[in-house]
Every structure is written in C-alpha cells, then in structure tokens.
C-alpha cells in the first residue's frame, strides 16, 4: 500500500466543520432549517459567500435576510472520480442562481437519476450529514 492510500484509509469519514465568525450566522440559520444571507445595511447588497465586509460599499453591518430556497440551475458537474465518502458515485453538484440573485453551490439529490438542464428549477432542502452536522442540498422541483 502506498503512502497515499494509507492516508486515505486513515482519513476521517467527514472532515470536521470549518467555520469562523463570518460564517456563524449562515450555519446558525441552516441549523434552524432556514437559508439566510447577510444583506448590507449600508447599500442593501446581498452577500454570498459570507464575509466580514460588504464588497460593494465596505459596510460592516448586516441583517440576515431570509431567502426562499428557490433557484434555477446555473451550472453543474457529474462527479465520477474519485469516490467521496458520504456521497453516491456518480454524484451531481449544482451551482444555482437563487431567486434573490446570488449563487449557491450544493449537492443535487438523486442528480444521477434525473435529466439535468441548465435553467431547470431547484429548491433547497435541509439535511443532516453523517456526523449530525446540519447541511443542505438542492432537489429538482
């Protein structure tokens, strides 16, 4: 067995969540089964991914806007290799344009069993990872 296969065998099933002050509100909402995104109180721009500062006006005060979870597929990939722990092979990851105008990337449930077309409607569903960490996936409407 090579050094790399060794490390692969030893790798934990799900890597521990990496978050920071800037992502707390996002993941806090996900745990409540809500999609919330920071909206700048200065200029009104909606921000994703979360960050410490509004890139449009450099404001640092936000409200966490509740979002609908409705989206349209913007791009995607069907992943065949390497196989990933906790995901089927093949599995589909979708980049979607959310109704509110920002893009969000998430796994597409049963993506290998449906016909995929850019522009198709998707909705966000809340799920739990194998280690119990709250997460989210897209499903086709």
């Amino acid at each position: 067995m090579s050094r790399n296969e060794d490390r692969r065998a030893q790798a934990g099933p799900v890597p521990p969540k990496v978050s920071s002050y800037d992502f707390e509100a996002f993941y806090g909402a996900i745990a409540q089964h809500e999609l919330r995104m920071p909206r700048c109180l200065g200029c009104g721009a909606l921000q994703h991914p979360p960050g410490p500062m509004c890139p449009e006006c450099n404001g640092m005060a936000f409200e966490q806007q509740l979002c609908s979870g409705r989206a349209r597929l913007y791009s995607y990939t069907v992943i065949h290799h390497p196989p990933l722990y906790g995901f089927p092979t093949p599995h589909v990851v979708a980049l979607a344009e959310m109704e509110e105008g920002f893009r969000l990337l998430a796994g597409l449930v049963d993506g290998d069993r449906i016909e995929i077309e850019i522009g198709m409607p998707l909705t966000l569903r809340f799920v739990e990872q194998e280690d119990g960490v709250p997460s989210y996936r897209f499903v086709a409407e």
Partner: protein
Amino acid sequence: MELSRKASIVGIGQTEFSKNSGRSELRLCTEAVTAALADAGISPHDVDGFVSFCMDNNTEGEVARALGMRDLTYFGRVDQGGGACGGTILQAAMAVATGAARTVVCWRAMNERSGARFGQPSAQLQVMPDPELTWMYVSQGLQSAASYMAVMMRRYMYETGATREDFGRIALAARKHAAINPHAWFHGQPISMEDYLASRPIAEPLCLLDCCQETDGGVAFVITSTQRARDLRQKPVLISAAAQGIRKGTNAMACFYRADISPRDEVRLVGDQLYAKSNLTSDDIDVAIIYDHFGPSVMPALEALGFCEYGEAKDFIRDGGIELGGHLPVNTHGGQVGEGYIHGMNGVLEAVRQVRGTAINQVETVNHVMVTGASGVPTSGAILSAL
C-alpha cells in the same frame, strides 16, 4: 520603473518527468538548479537570489546549503500553485532590475505523484486553502480540482456552444506534440478523437484525457540583467513583460460568483498587462504556452489573451489551428496534459527553447512567446522574446 526587457532568462534545467522519482524533492531541486546554472555558464557561488512557489517544500536555506551557495540577498515566493509560474519571472525580473539581486534562480520541484497528490479529495488534504470556503464545498461533495473546473467549463459550454469534440481537439494537439517529445510522459503515444470520446469521465464534462499529468520532477531557470545576458553562453531570452492578476471574483478554482464564471477574467487581466508593458499585440505572438491543468481551459484562455473573440475558441482550434504548422502553435512540448505537470514551470522552459530555436517541435521563426499560469485562480504570465 519600466521593467520591460531589463532582465533575461539565461539558463534552463530540469530533471526527467516521472511518476516516481525515487529521490527527495531537495535532490530534484538541486539537480534542476545545477542543470540550469550549467546551461547558463554561471557558478552556484554567483547566485544571490531565489524565487520559488509557496507550495514548494524545499526551503531556501536547505537549497542554498545543498548547492554550496554563498551570499543570498533576495528570496521570494509566489502563492497559488500553478498560478505562480509567471509570478516567479516577475519577482526575479524586479529583483534584478532594482538591484536586490544580480542572479536569480527560480525553481519548482516536487514529488507530486509519488508523494502528496493534489488531485485527491480536498477532505483528505492536510491543508485547505480558504478553509471556510473549502469546507463549504467539501461538505457538498465538491472536492477535487477537476470538479471545480468542471462547474466552470460546463457553463462555458452552455454559453459558447463548445462541445466535447472541441475539448478533444485540445487534448489531441497536446498529445500530438508530446508524442514527439522524448521528455514527455506520453512520448510516442498520440491519441485519436475516438480515444478521447471513449475516455472515462472524471467530473463531467471533463474526462481523464482532459486532466494534466501527476508528475515527479524539478524545473529551474536563471534570470539576470539583459546587459549581462549578452556576454553569457546562451542566446538571451528577454522578459518583454511579466504580470500577475486577480480580478474581482477570482478565487482558487471556484470563480462561482462573478458574472462570467469561465476561467477567463484573470487571464484577461494578465494578458492586457503583458501586451501593454511589452508594446506587443496578440498578432506578434508566434507560440503560446497556455496553462493546461485541464485541457479545455485552454479555450477560454485563448479568448482572454485576444487570440480570438469570446466564444470563438472553438473555431480557432479547428483544423489543427493550435498544432505545429497551425496559425498559433500552442503547448508545443505537449503541455501538462502530455509532457508533465510541474505547475507550469516546464512550460516556461518550452517558451525559452522556442525563443532559442532549440525546441523539439520548433516553430520556424519565433520572436515572441506567450506563457501563462493557471486560469481560474490568481494567476500570472509572461512574454519572452528574442533579442
């Protein structure tokens, strides 16, 4: 301070490119650096500057000790993996032009195949760039460079009408050039469109034959002033321009949130600077070495560098357009898909050989060669020219 043509590449060196070098990364580095210095006719004692990659595991102190170097007055590094290759040229040229150092060696040496492989799922990598963002993608099952690029290139196909056959033309050109290059991993192994279309999917729309090699090897080159270069052993290869670029929304392999997610914006920023600084245009470029972490990404890069309009790369590459004898020979060494993957530094060597007139797939008259770093990440590039 105007940097154009102040510094030149005067020596190049490399190890063999393999899947298992059987020796340390420090040894690969010292072999490549020694070869580059011998090529230049410069003693290690005369080297006073280093530039390498943040990702390179060899430390300046160890390399200096191994080579018996004396006084080093400048040592820098460039981040962003394959985005760094042109950045090393920029740093070295700046060091030479400002007097921070007189003779700078740039290197990249790694056991990328037999050691830590970059293509592994990110969940199993020991270091994650932008850790919060990377975990956000890992937790959704987006974990390899190929899958990141696949999301960007799927949208490119949708917007431009590019097909898998078009992607195949990039792979065929690279493998055709590699087949003739004895240093290439795929020496003597050209492929057909049938081979390409039958290649197993990795992250659709990308297949195995779109992916660069995983390579053990070392590459180095030597930069000094153009004035001094005239008296050295080799025909000087002038650095007409070198530049780096991050554009709004450029993020490591995940430019998902900008208007155009194809890996194009940062290459455009680099190309625009290169032309402006060198007073050249895309028409002046005789050969292009375009970073191919994934072959299909060459298409948006050709557009970003002004060789064709947005969305027209598929026409530009038809009928052997980027093959030897075509209107713009691209990756004449076989690229990283065909020769080897040393984070684009082997491409810099090919650019130098083309200007010198010593490439295995030599283009007839070469005055200017474009060489670029990885697209879809903070990147860089250079134009190298004959005296």
